[in-house]
C-alpha cells in the first residue's frame, strides 16, 4: 500500500447496479430457495447458523442463571407450568446447548456460511463445482435442525451432546430423534467438504498455484479433508447407537455384552477431528484479518499453510486423550498423551506468525482487527490450557471438571466464535454492500472480550479446585466463582447483542460499501460489493494475495483502489481454452 498521489492506472469497480448485484438481480421466495448461487446459499447458512447460535446462547444464559445459586436458581420443579423436576430441566438445557452449538453452529458456521460465500470468490471462480449438491447440503442442514427441534419438543434430550452409552441406550429421552438429526447434519457437512475439495482442486483460475491461494482457502481445504474422512465415522457410530437402543445388538451396552468404552473410541475418533473442523477455518479467517488490517504480507505463508494440513492429519491421532480416566492401558494413554502434544506445535506456529505479521505493519484498529486481536489473546489461553489436559498427571485431576469446560470454551467460543464474528465484520460490506458503524462494532468487540473472560476465567479455578462439570447443583464453597461467571455471561450476551444490532442497522441505513473497504489484495475484493451474480466479468488477474504494493488509499473518495496491474502476472500455464466454469465468460 502506498500513500501520496494516486497513480494514473487505478481501477475501481465502483458500485454494482440492481441488476448486477446477486442480492437483487432476481426476486421472490423461490429465487432464494431454489437458488444455485453459492453466495445466496452462504447467506441462507449465515441466517440459519446465527439463529441456531441465538437459541444455543439463550440456553447458555439459562444454564448460567440457574447456577447463580448452589441449589439452582432459574429452573424450579414446576417451571413454565411443567411438572418435570429442576435437575431434569437443567440436564436437558445443557444437553441442547451443547448439541445445538456443536452440530448446528460451530461446525457449519465458518465453513458453510462464510466458506460458501467466499471460497469461489476468493478463487476467482463463478460458483462451487457442484452447485446443486451445495443447495442440497443446506436443505439437509435444515432437515437435521428440524430433528433437533423435534427431540426438544417431544420428550427432551438429557444425554449430553456426546450421547455416551449406556446412559444413552437406557434413558427414555428422544435419543433417536436427536442422533438421526446429527446423522443428517453429518451428510450436510460431508457434502460441503466434498464440494470445496473439488472446487479448490479444479477451479483455480490460471496462475493461481497452491501457494498463491489465500490462507483461508488452505484452511478450508484442510477442514474439508477432515469433514469427508471423519464424519462418516460419526454417522456409523450414531446408527450403531440407534441399533443398540432399538435391537440391543450388544455393541455398547454391557447388559448385552457390549463395551461402553468402544462407543467412546468411535465417538471421539470423529469428534476430536471435529474440533479441528471447528477451529481450522477460524485460523484461516484470522490469517486474512491480521494481514489485511496490518496491510502487511502474511509472515511465514508456507508454514501457516503446512501447519493447517499438519493439524488436519495429526487431529486424527489424538482422540484417546478424551479417555485418560476411562480405563485404557497405561501404554495407550501414554501414546495418546505424546501424540496430543504434537498438535500444539502447529497451533503455536500460527500464533507466532500472526504476531510477526503485525510487526512493522500499518495496523488499522478496525472492528475485524479488534476481533482478531481478541482471538489471539483468547485462543492463546485456550491452547495453553490444553497442555494441562494433555499432560497425564494433571488430566486425571482436571478431567470432567470446569477446567475442561473453560478450556474448550476458550477454544470454541474464544476461538471459533470470535473468528466468525471477526470474519462476518470483515466480509459484511462485501456480502451486503453496506458499511456498518465502526464505533458500534469496536464497542461490541470490547464488551464481548470483557464478558467472555469474566465468564470463563473463573471456571479454570472452579475446575482445578475440584468442581465437576454438568452439575445442576453444587457445594456452597463454589458459589462465589459461579456468580462471577454468570455476571460475565450476561455481559457477553450484551456484547453479542450489540454486534447483532450494529450489523442489522447497517442494512437499514449503512453507507454503500466500495469494492475494497479494507485495502485487501485477495480476489474477493476485486469485484463490486455486493458481488455480481457471476462474481467476475472475466478470469481475474492472479497475484500474491498478500502483496499490498499496488493498493492505494484514495483520500478524495475515501476508499482503497488498486493500480492495474503492476504486480507480476504469473505466466499462463493453462492451454488456450480454460474451463467455462473457471470464472471465464460463457
Amino acid at each position, binding site marked *: *500500500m*502506498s*500513500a501520496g498521489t494516486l497513480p494514473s492506472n487505478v481501477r475501481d469497480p465502483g458500485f454494482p447496479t440492481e441488476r448486477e448485484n446477486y442480492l437483487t438481480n432476481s426476486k421472490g421466495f423461490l429465487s432464494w430457495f431454489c437458488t444455485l448461487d453459492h453466495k445466496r446459499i452462504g447467506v441462507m447458512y449465515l441466517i440459519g447458523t446465527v439463529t441456531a447460535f441465538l437459541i444455543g446462547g439463550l440456553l447458555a444464559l439459562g444454564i448460567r442463571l440457574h447456577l447463580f445459586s448452589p441449589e439452582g436458581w432459574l429452573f424450579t420443579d414446576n417451571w413454565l407450568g411443567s411438572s418435570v423436576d429442576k*435437575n431434569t430441566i437443567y440436564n436437558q438445557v445443557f444437553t441442547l446447548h451443547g448439541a445445538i452449538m456443536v452440530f448446528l453452529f460451530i461446525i457449519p458456521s465458518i465453513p458453510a456460511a462464510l466458506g460458501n460465500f467466499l471460497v469461489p470468490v476468493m478463487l476467482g471462480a463463478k460458483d462451487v463445482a457442484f452447485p446443486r449438491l451445495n443447495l442440497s447440503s443446506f436443505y439437509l442442514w435444515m432437515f437435521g435442525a428440524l430433528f433437533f427441534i423435534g427431540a426438544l419438543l417431544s420428550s427432551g434430550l*438429557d444425554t449430553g451432546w456426546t450421547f*455416551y452409552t449406556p*446412559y444413552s441406550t437406557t*434413558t427414555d429421552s428422544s435419543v433417536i430423534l436427536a442422533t438421526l438429526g446429527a446423522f443428517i447434519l453429518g451428510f450436510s457437512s460431508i457434502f460441503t467438504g466434498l464440494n470445496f475439495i473439488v472446487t479448490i482442486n479444479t477451479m483455480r483460475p490460471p496462475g493461481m498455484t497452491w501457494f498463491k491461494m489465500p490462507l483461508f482457502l488452505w484452511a478450508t481445504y484442510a477442514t474439508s479433508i477432515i469433514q469427508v474422512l471423519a464424519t462418516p465415522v460419526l454417522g456409523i457410530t450414531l446408527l450403531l447407537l440407534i441399533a443398540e437402543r432399538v435391537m440391543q445388538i450388544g455393541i455398547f451396552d*454391557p447388559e448385552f*455384552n*457390549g*463395551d461402553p468404552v468402544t462407543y467412546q473410541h468411535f465417538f471421539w475418533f470423529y469428534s476430536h477431528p471435529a474440533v479441528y473442523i471447528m477451529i481450522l477455518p477460524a485460523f484461516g479467517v484470522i490469517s486474512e484479518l491480521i494481514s489485511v488490517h*496490518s*496491510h*502487511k504480507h502474511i509472515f*511465514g505463508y508456507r*508454514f501457516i499453510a503446512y501447519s493447517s494440513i499438519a493439524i488436519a492429519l495429526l487431529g486424527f491421532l489424538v482422540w484417546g486423550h478424551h479417555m485418560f480416566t476411562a*480405563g485404557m492401558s*497405561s501404554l495407550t494413554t501414554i501414546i495418546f*498423551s505424546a501424540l496430543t*502434544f504434537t498438535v500444539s*506445535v502447529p497451533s*503455536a506456529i500460527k500464533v507466532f506468525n500472526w*504476531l*510477526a505479521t*503485525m510487526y*512493522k*505493519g*500499518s*495496523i*488499522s*484498529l478496525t472492528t475485524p482487527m479488534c476481533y482478531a486481536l481478541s482471538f489471539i*489473546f483468547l485462543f*492463546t489461553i485456550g491452547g*495453553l490450557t490444553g*497442555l*494441562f489436559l*494433555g*499432560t*497425564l*498427571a*494433571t488430566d*486425571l485431576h482436571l478431567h*470432567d*471438571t470446569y477446567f475442561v469446560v473453560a478450556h474448550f470454551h476458550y477454544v470454541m467460543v474464544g476461538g471459533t466464535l470470535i473468528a466468525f464474528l471477526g470474519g462476518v465484520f470483515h466480509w459484511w460490506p462485501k456480502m451486503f454492500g453496506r458499511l456498518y458503524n465502526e464505533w458500534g462494532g469496536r464497542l461490541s468487540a470490547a464488551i464481548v472480550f470483557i464478558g467472555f473472560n469474566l465468564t470463563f476465567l473463573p471456571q479454570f*479455578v472452579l475446575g482445578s*479446585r*475440584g468442581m*465437576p462439570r*454438568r*452439575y445442576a*447443583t453444587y*457445594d*456452597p*464453597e463454589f*458459589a*462465589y*466463582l459461579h*456468580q462471577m461467571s454468570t455476571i460475565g455471561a450476561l455481559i457477553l450476551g450484551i456484547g453479542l447483542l450489540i454486534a447483532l444490532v450494529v450489523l442489522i442497522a447497517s442494512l437499514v441505513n449503512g453507507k454503500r460499501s466500495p469494492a475494497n473497504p479494507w485495502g485487501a489484495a485477495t480476489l474477493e475484493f476485486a469485484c463490486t460489493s455486493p458481488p455480481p451474480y457471476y462474481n467476475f466479468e472475466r478470469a481475474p488477474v492472479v497475484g500474491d494475495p498478500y502483496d*499490498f504494493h499496488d493498493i492505494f488509499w484514495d483520500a478524495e473518495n475515501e476508499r482503497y483502489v488498486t493500480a492495474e496491474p503492476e504486480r507480476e502476472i504469473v505466466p499462463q500455464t493453462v492451454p488456450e481454452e480454460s474451463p467455462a466454469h473457471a470464472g471465464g465468460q460463457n
Partner: protein
Amino acid sequence: MLDHNQLPLADVNKSLWFPEQASSFAEGVDWVYDTILYISLVFFVGIVIALVWFAIKYHKKKGEPAESQTSHHTPLELLWSIGPSFLLVYMFVVGAISYLDMRTPPEGSYEIGVEAYKWGWTMDYGGGTYHPELHLLLDEPTKLSMRSSDVIHSLFIPAFRAKKDIVPGRYNYMWFKPTVASEKVSDEELAKAKKATGTDAWDYDEYQFTPDGYRFFDLYCAEYCGKSHSEMQTVVVVHETQEELDAWIKEKASRPDDVAPEAWGKTLYNQRGCASCHSIDGSKRVGPSFKDLAGSTHALADGSSVTVDPNYIRESILEPKAKVVAGYNPVMPSYKGQLSDDDIDSIIAYLKTLAE
C-alpha cells in the same frame, strides 16, 4: 450473598488453584500443574505484550504504508517451531512419570470395594459391612475395586487429585495414600448439630462434618449419569489409627442393639441410596413413593397387580426387575448380598411406619 468464607483465598491453608493436598499424589500433581502454569505464563505474557505493543506502536493512519513487507525468515520460523517442542517433551515426560505412579498400586494395599449406582455409592468394607461413606486409614495405600450397576460413573476426590471412571461391565481400579487425617469435632458441636437436624437426613454441606463427627473430604461423581448426577456425592474420612477405623467399621456392620428396627430402616433409607429415587412425601421420583405404600395394592407393568406386603418388598429389594410398578422403568439395582435379613426387616418396619 457473598460469604467471606467462600472467597477462594480466605482460607490461608488453601491455594487459589487447589483444594487441600490430602494424598501422596497431590504434591506431585500440583507441582506438575504449577510447572506447566509457569511455562505457559511466560509464553502468554510474552505474546500479549507483543500483541499490545505492536497494535499500539504500528497503529497507522489510513493509507500509510507498512514499514516492512518481510514475508518470511526461515531460521526464525524453525527456531520457534522446534524450540517450544523441547518444553512440550518435558511436560509430557513429567506428566507421564507421575501418572505411572498413580496407575500401579503397591503390593498388599488395603482394599475396599466400591459400587456406584444412580445416584449414590456403596463402599464394601468386607464381612458384610456396607456404607456410603469412604473411610480410610492414614498413610495406608488403599486400592479401590470399583464397579457400576447401571451407567458410567466416575469417582473423583479433589483433595486426593485422584479420579477414575467406573464403567459398567468391568472392574476399574484406583489407589491412593491419604496423608491428612480427618479431625474430629467436639462432642458439644456434634450434639448441637444432631439436635438441630432432628430426624431429618444429615446435611453434610451445612455442618461440614459427618454424623459421626469427622471432618471430611468431598467425593464426587464426575461422569454425567442422569438426573441426580450432581447429588451423587459422598465423603471421605481418614482415620488416624487402625483401631479407630476398625471400631467405625464394626459400628456400621449391623443394627446396634439399642436402635429400633424402624429407626435403622430409616437410616438405611437415607444411607443406601433409596432416598434418591423413592420419596417419603408422596412426590413422584424415579421410583414409586414410599408414603402409604405398605399394604396398598399396586398395578404392575405387565397388567397384573400386587399387594405390597413384606414378601413383595423383600423381592423388590433383591430382584427389583421382577415385578415393576406400572408407569416406572426397571432401573433399580439389586441389593442382593448388600443388605442382611435384619436390614431388610428394618426397612420393611420403616415402610410400615410411613403407611400409618
